[in-house]
């Protein structure tokens, strides 16, 4: 038995007939080939699979693809616009906010959501909002700095910088 799912992902509409039990993370990765989001734990603990469902971050390992029918999904592949990196992406580069890169897409999606709703978060607020996601490499310090870098960048409205020390 299959079920028809029509979902808009990063602005493109996809229609697929899938098993009702198919998880959103596997739909995005295996059916659509968008492998930037990762499958890490199955239990909503690690957050490697975080993407947006209708503008809210969700852990897509515990969302059925069928639940996304008629809705909009945004993944890490949808962050870069017209060849310009999103400031949170740039922030992670500038502040060494990633090492192996496996948790990064989920962290970026949460960070983007945070700055959309709280453009000037302090360290405690950043730590709180990423606390549902696990990073095994960075000890979180540089992720916090990366999000702060992006917040500063967006608030000051400065043009792209070539690199250098984190602001």
């Amino acid at each position, binding site marked *: 038995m299959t079920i028809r799912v029509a979902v808009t992902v990063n602005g493109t509409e996809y229609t697929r007939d899938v098993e009702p039990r198919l998880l959103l993370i596997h739909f995005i990765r295996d059916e659509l080939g968008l492998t930037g989001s*990762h499958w*890490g734990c199955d239990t909503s603990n690690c957050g490697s699979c975080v993407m947006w469902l209708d503008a809210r971050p969700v852990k897509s390992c515990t969302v059925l693809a069928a639940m996304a029918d008629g809705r909009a999904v945004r993944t890490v592949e949808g962050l870069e616009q017209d060849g310009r990196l999103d400031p949170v992406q740039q922030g992670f580069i500038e502040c*060494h906010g990633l*090492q192996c*890169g496996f948790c990064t897409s989920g962290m970026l999606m949460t960070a983007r959501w945070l700055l959309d709703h709280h453009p000037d978060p302090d360290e405690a607020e950043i730590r709180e909002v990423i606390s549902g996601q696990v990073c*095994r490499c960075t*000890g979180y310090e540089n992720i916090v700095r990366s999000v702060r870098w992006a917040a500063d960048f967006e608030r000051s409205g400065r043009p792209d910088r070539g690199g250098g020390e984190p602001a």
Partner: protein
Amino acid sequence: MTDVNGGPPPGFGRRLRKEDQRFIRGQGLYVDDVRLPGMLHGAVLRSPHPHARILSVDTLAAEAHPKVRAVITGETLASLNLAWMPTLSGDTQAVLATDKVRFQGQEVAFVVAEDRYSARDALELIVVDYEPLPPVVDARRALDAGAPLIRDDQPGRTTNHIFDWEAGDARATEAVFRDAEVTVAQDMLYPRVHPAPLETCGAVADFDRVTGKLTIWETTQAPHAHRTLYAMVSGVPEHKIRVISPDIGGGFGNKVPIYPGYLCAIAGSMITSKPVKWMEDRSENLMSGSFARDFHMRGELAGSRDGRIRAVRVTVLADHGAFNGTAQPSKFPAGFFSVFTGSYDLEAAYCQVTGVYTNKAPGGVAYSCSFRVTEAVYLVERMVDLLALELGLDPAELRLRNLLRPEQFPYTCQTGWVYDSGDYPRTLRLAMELAGYAELRREQEAERANGSLMGIGVSFFTEAVGAGPRKHMDILGLGMADGVELRMHPTGTAVLRISVQTQGQGHETTFAQIVAEELGISPDDVEVVHGDTDQTPFGLGTYGSRSTPVSGAATAIAARKLREHARLIAAAMMEVDVADLDWERGRWFVRGDPDQGRTITEIALAAHSSLELPEGVEGHLDASCVYNPPNLTYPCGAYICVVDVDPGTGKVSVRRFVAVDDCGVRINPMIVEGQVHGGLADGIGMALMEVIAFDDDGNCLGGSFMDYLLPTSLECPSWELGETVTPSPHHPIGAKGVGESATVGSPPAVVNAVIDALRPYGVRHADMPLTPAQVWRAIQGRPFRTDLAIG
């Protein structure tokens, strides 16, 4: 040519990572991202029992599943002589069980199906008839008379004993203990933990029946070693095997061993003639993948009343699980545990280690442990704190009195390791200064007067990393040396091929910086190729913090060889004597006439041109090096942790963490600091949260992230780092390994801080993890064993 930061080519120094560009776009290529035409999916059936005889395996219903292409059992593999494989410690391990299962989660059968979900569905259609046997759960009972025999597959075996091993001088140590003014002793457990990289283990195997070529994409930290082992086991010749280790989502030692799932994927591809992907899920990773530690230790310290540490003695019971699959140099069955002499000038030292089988998953050397330096540092740093308590001395002061002095290097410790360099007192003093140590102690006194439980923990570690010298260090007979190949193209850019394997350490950036430093070109002009055995020279891979100590050295030497070859060509270009040329960054010039010179880029083009070269000089610009390190490198560090303990709940909060690391010359300080940050988080996790425990029936109690708790951004403070730099005297660029330093050094700092906080209750020790329950029980005077599900 300028670098992206706008300055001159920097070589060493802070530099943004090349690899980030793909990761932040979601364009990394991890094993599970590999999709091949016609690819099938595999899943492993695992034992629910920790110890049971297999009476029968019925696969008929699974084979009848419409989407199943193959069902493989131990019997199938036995007919191919593949049912058992060698482990990295020279033991054997079942690929798929035939006679018995020996731990919960052991591999029993493998299904190949058209999709991921169908493969898992079919697992439920396989009927295995088990006859449960009593399990050995507690390592301390494994050698009891009448204990169930786990490895009855080995002819003549009558016990669960694996090995006895010792280091140091038992008699000299006993002599010091006999006349010591003061001694302290403590039993302690470094519990079983798991590296838990966010990417689980997996593989895509593709056997081409026509060409006989086996290509396997694999989550491995050691692609070349795996290829050699596959050649030995499978009968496929080594030149027909290509192991590709693409982007790796964290390793921490979890991705060093060969897992049965890899071989099942290979067998599945050979049987179906299709590519087969196998990705384990999180529970499989935690329950069956290589665990770490599980060392039951008794430490003793002998000292004098005036605060001199004289000798240390340790006995260890090492729980290796059901198969001896520890990944470590073969002459070191307890890894490098014998550096438990720590950072102190001792009169004598001795350790005795016994390894045993239990009905638990195999492994033991993983989780950034530097071949068990982790356990060694934990032991000695806990013992030093116990001695300080006994003597009524401040633990930092006791350490300062006993740390090796700079003039003692190179220092041969009582168990024979030759520490290369370090300034230990300066390192500890810097950490104390950054922490405001004296002020913290005053604050603690005031808080105690108010009934608050504030604790301050100190640790000092010496690591031994960068295996090996190959004369002493090999894995399955493969000497621990690593090769690099460096080639400069006609237009002056370069490609460096390395055998070591990044799992997030940033090799593409760091190794390019080494070449840049040596040749005076931009790191952007150096492409680093890794993770493909068809494209890179042989070497043993990345673990034990060995990439920079071994392959970093190889890279610098290869670049210097290339530079010397460039000198010959430059001399021909300028028609001058080779001996008259001097090097400055990026060019050879005529001594006394600096305007007359040729840049490396000009030389590269000339090397490939019609220029007539002297007899014997080949027209190319490349070099290679296989680096066999003369010694390990010995990074060190001083860590200070400040905690607050809630006396009502036992909850520990880490308020501050100061870490001063000395890893010699820092190639990219940004990356070094990132490595330290990650290791400090590991330390918080192990000290306070993480454990793989078992119940009496042998059930694994850490099989998901619901039970195996990892530190998040809320448990971790904002790290405060400092550095000292004492270059390694034998490393070409003076660098030392750093990837595991913080994981090794931080757990004792956290535990020492918690025990310090509990001093008003007279607590001397409690085993990790110091969960609220464990701390609360310690306050009540009865801390429990954390490895068993009993209270």
